[in-house]
């Protein structure tokens, strides 16, 4: 039997506003528990929410970027359910009149490009965190995250496999970071998704029963979780079992999904319009301002890099595909003469380090200051490319300054003719047999002499100078 998969994804994007959606408490990540919390966030009796318009501006930017309709009047609703990290006993979200309606996202896979339509995107507040394993016999609540603005982006069920799901998430990640509406840090939960997965017989028009995999927070897990779920459902159906509509959780340790709660026990959320907030109205003037200050998107960046900085097309493509890399490039650029070298270095050595650890450059120890300094040290001949790699390795690990590493480790390139001449003379003397062989026509030995010089100078000799002096010496 051939099966077809139907996937729809709900993505939660934490918007990078300074303060929360309904209170003026900070949204900074990683603070001590319950410190980014004010009266509103802990839902004390008598408190009232007031809207942070910045969140709306960011949501609108997303809407405009995907060609959606912007509801200039949108309303908030209450979603009622009990949970200890939901202080009010309801979440303020948008039901009937979301800020963003429709639009689409283009994804790229090996099969080509595909358009995934977006149903809607609405604003809502995040919940706090329950901590179950730190205090013996007790659960703890951290409300720092409670009230952080989320943009929930709901896709149409148009995604056909796990690879497309990953491509869709990558496209969203690229969008929200370029639009500067989220830091996109998946490891910190800034971008996470729920995947609704169902399968049906090929050609069948009726959708199968779906399950929802909750809270997946890495590209790798999206692919694995969905693939596991597809295979599980196929197995169930091929064994003549049925699929239960339920919420499932992906366990990355065991690489499996398992049921959280079934629909029978599902909450009736009792949505109704939030009476504490008036409809939020975005004026034409506000909308115009958002359009006027629209950030540069990848395609525009690519063209600019090629035109303005004469960066090779391929390098420019890589640089402009990631917001953090592009930002890093653009800041480093200011103090660097050789922009091509900078681009090459970022696309080459640095990207391979990032890929190895699966992090973004803004999550690493690298700073634009250190990297531009490093590039300049290469261009002015202070260090060789080889030494540059040594320094990169060190600044990667500890974030130290290149000039300090050089000083501490004595890594300055030796370009002084006299000094190199002296070293070469010594090497030729010590290796008189090889010199004879070379002079007799065994020209391959030239590399051997260069190697010896580098070995003796610990790679610090300027290779150009070494080459030219060596050639001259061996002529005689």
């Amino acid at each position, binding site marked *: 039997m051939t099966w077809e998969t139907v996937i729809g994804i709900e993505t939660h994007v934490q918007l990078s506003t300074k303060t929360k959606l309904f209170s003026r408490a900070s949204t900074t990540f990683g603070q001590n528990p319950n410190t980014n919390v004010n009266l509103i966030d802990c*839902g*004390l*009796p*008598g408190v*009232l929410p007031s809207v942070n318009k910045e969140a709306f501006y960011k949501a609108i930017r997303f809407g405009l970027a995907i060609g959606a309709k912007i509801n200039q009047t949108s309303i908030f609703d209450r979603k009622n359910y009990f949970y200890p990290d939901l*202080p009010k006993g309801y979440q303020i979200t948008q039901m009937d009149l979301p800020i963003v309606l429709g639009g689409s996202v283009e994804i790229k896979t090996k099969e080509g490009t595909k358009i995934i339509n977006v149903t809607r995107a609405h604003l809502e507040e995040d919940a706090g965190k329950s901590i179950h394993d730190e205090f013996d016999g007790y659960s703890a609540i951290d409300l720092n995250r409670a009230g952080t603005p989320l943009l929930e982006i709901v896709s149409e069920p148009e995604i056909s496999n796990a690879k497309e799901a990953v491509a869709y998430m990558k496209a969203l990640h690229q969008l929200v970071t370029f639009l500067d509406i989220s830091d996109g840090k998946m490891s910190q939960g800034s971008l996470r998704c729920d995947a609704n997965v169902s399968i049906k017989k090929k050609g069948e028009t009726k959708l199968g029963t779906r399950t929802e995999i909750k809270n997946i927070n890495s590209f790798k897990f999206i692919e694995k979780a969905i693939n596991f779920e597809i295979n599980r459902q196929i197995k169930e159906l091929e064994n003549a079992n049925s699929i239960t509509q339920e919420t499932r959780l992906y366990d990355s340790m065991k690489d499996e999904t398992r049921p959280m709660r079934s629909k029978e026990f599902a909450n009736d959320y*009792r949505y109704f319009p939030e*009476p504490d907030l008036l409809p939020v109205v975005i004026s034409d003037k506000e909308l115009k301002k958002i359009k006027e200050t629209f950030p540069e998107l990848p395609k525009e960046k690519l063209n600019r890099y090629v035109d303005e900085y004469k960066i090779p097309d391929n390098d420019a493509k890589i640089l402009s595909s990631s917001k953090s890399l592009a930002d890093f490039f653009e800041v480093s650029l200011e103090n660097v003469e050789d922009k091509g070298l900078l681009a090459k270095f970022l696309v080459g050595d640095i990207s391979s380090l990032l890929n190895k650890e699966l992090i973004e450059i803004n999550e690493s120890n690298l700073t634009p200051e250190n990297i531009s300094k490093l590039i300049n040290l290469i261009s002015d001949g202070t260090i060789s490319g080889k030494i540059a790699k040594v320094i990169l390795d060190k600044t990667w690990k500890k974030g130290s300054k290149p000039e300090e590493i050089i000083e501490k480790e004595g890594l300055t390139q030796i370009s002084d003719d006299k000094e190199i001449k002296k070293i070469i003379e010594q090497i030729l003397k010590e290796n008189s047999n090889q010199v004879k062989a070379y002079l007799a026509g065994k020209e391959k030995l030239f590399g051997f002499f260069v190697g010896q010089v580098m070995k003796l100078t610990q790679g610090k000799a300027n290779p150009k100078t070494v080459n030219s002096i060596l050639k001259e010496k061996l002529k005689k």
Partner: protein
Amino acid sequence: MSIQFKSILELKSMLNSKTISSSELIEETFKLTKDLKDLNCFVTMNEDSAKQKAKQIDQGKYKNNSYLTGIPLGQKDLFCTEGLRTTCASKILSNFIPPYSATVVKKLEDSGSITIGKTNMDEFAMGSSNETSFYGNVHNPWKRNYVPGGSSGGSAAAVAAGIVPASTGTDTGGSIRQPAAHCGITGMKPTYGKVSRWGMVAFASSLDQAGPLARSAEDCAIMLNEMSGHDLKDTTSLDVEHTDLLRSINNPIKGIKIGIVKEFNLNDLDSKIQERFQDSKKLFEKLGAKFIKISLQNISASVPTYYSIAPAECSSNLSRFDGVKFGHRSKNSNNLNDLYIQSRSEGFGDEVKRRILIGTYALSAGYYDAYYKKAQQVRRLIKNDFESAFETVDLIMTPTSPNTAFEFDSKGAQNPVELYLEDLFTISSNLAGLPAISIPHGMVDNLPVGLQLIGNFLREDKILNAAHVFQKNSEFHLAKPSLEDF
């Protein structure tokens, strides 16, 4: 010289003439609260800080000299008061000490008034008799074992007994006006949004509004002047200019047009209550008012509409009382669900539970459209009726309550709906967001009767003007209970 039964203006002139010091006034006030402890007006007293503030005022440390500087006030126990227990008359908040004050409390205290304590009320403002308080019934100062009305029963009784010249109250369906009527004082519910709801524990957010209970319309104007104003912390508060309500209070009312609602069949009411109504109508006519019959054709739907919307919002608003962060937590729970169930079962009283159940039902999937949504649509119609009525009249006059105060346990215990009908005349102005006042206009069987004047959107000035002129030409508001039962 006794301070009992004195109005704000009278106390103010005593303070200004140094007939009494602020400290003496507060001292006397607390003496009264103790003498009249049986009334059970207060849930929590604020004696130490009240006395301290009075002393500061006497020492001239209070720069602001307003009408309210040095004046003792009761605050309904629904308003958060920083450092002072706020229970909403519920067991579930019996240990709750707020870290902040409601905007209303802050404004009144900033104007120099002195909070002497938190007044008793129906639990979470749900009730019309003050019998749902966890802290016991409040007695009507006019007759022991009679209800003071509710939910602001403690506030009304404290003013009627002359302990404080004024108190704050909240009104979701009549909770200021009905107890004011039953206790023979003046109470006003302002336009929705005139007074900030920040720090006022929510019952039904779209209907709740804070207002004053006092001995006269003039005192209500003084209170409301201080209480109103746009508040950035409450986005539903109105961003409009709030005019001085005393400015036009003495204007002649000759020529004002007062509407009588055709749909309210007053013949159904007790004949003595009808007489009072006719008498007041005559007095207004004598003062130059013209009466016009108006139609509010959807008004009969207001009670069911209210009892769909208010419980729905209440069921959500009261979800935060879950035993997790503040308030009562059951000691008998074994797991999370149990913690919720036990804490809420132990913490809430029957009427609150009833309304949470009704509201939960009204919002449930499959019922939302039939109840909550439909009710909101009807609400719109009721609002439209008022809008067109106010094209022809300045005010609308109705009785405040269909009856006078009743005996404890006589209503509601068996049939809650009977008690819900107490709100027949008051509910519609909450649904429409309009201002309304209740003023005393005589006695029936030794119990006070209230008269309601409803005004157009933000026309508190017109209501207070008419009420004040009425009071200048009558003495109903000056009647005092003998209090010999207490």
